[in-house]
């Protein structure tokens, strides 16, 4: 891969049946590019966690990905409510998910910790009332 590949996916708010389509298409692209299966798995899970957070906690948004020979970088941007206390949100078990969301199997408070676990780099930029950007990077080698 001499030049990097750039992809962009919209994510709709409150759309649980389609949540996972952005991470799913990214996964298919990574497979086509012949990237290592373990790397693909780590990226897919991390991006799905971010995607589902955009659906549940924000009003949807846009996922941008850049694939180069060295790494896969992803930006998950939303214009949702923002995160008040990022350190708290990063803790395993912390969740503000409501009961109807929990009934679907979400709300364990493990999503952001999973993103950290499966990536080589992760950061969160957030502002109350403005939105949140989750950045993640997985190295290929």
């Amino acid at each position, binding site marked *: 891969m001499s030049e990097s590949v750039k992809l962009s996916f919209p994510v709709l708010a409150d759309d649980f049946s389609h949540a*996972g389509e952005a991470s799913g298409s990214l996964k298919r692209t990574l497979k086509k590019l012949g990237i290592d*299966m373990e790397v693909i*798995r780590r990226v*897919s899970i991390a991006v*799905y*966690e971010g995607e589902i957070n955009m659906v549940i906690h924000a009003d949807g948004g846009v996922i941008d990905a850049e694939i180069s020979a060295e790494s896969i970088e992803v930006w998950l941007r939303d214009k949702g409510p923002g995160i008040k206390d990022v350190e708290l949100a990063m803790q395993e078990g912390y969740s503000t998910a409501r009961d109807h969301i929990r009934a679907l199997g*979400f709300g364990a408070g493990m999503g952001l910790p*999973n993103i950290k676990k499966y990536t080589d780099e992760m950061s969160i930029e957030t502002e109350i009332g403005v939105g949140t950007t989750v950045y993640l990077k997985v190295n290929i080698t």
Partner: protein
Amino acid sequence: MTVKELANNINAKILAGNNGVENEVTCGYCGDLLSWVMGRAKESSAWVTVMGNVNAVAVAVLADISCIVLAENSALDEDAKIKADEHDIPILRTDIPQYELCVAIEKLLK
């Protein structure tokens, strides 16, 4: 063991994802909280759960899970069935309770 062999051994019905029945199962995981599953389940797992919704199928797709095994005759949503067929994720179902089912699968995998 393949998903098909697993299904035969535990007397489970295959409700969806028939194109994936030759998937290899090497280990198992049990749980209903989706992020927990994504954090802990290994690839090629048989995933025992009562969560038969479309989000569970998305998790199985993204985490390279070999099959979903619905315990205690739990319900499979219609949109979940469609997604499982689309992505070749086999969904098995049995009336065995979750704990006994895991024990049975573990014995088979040993």
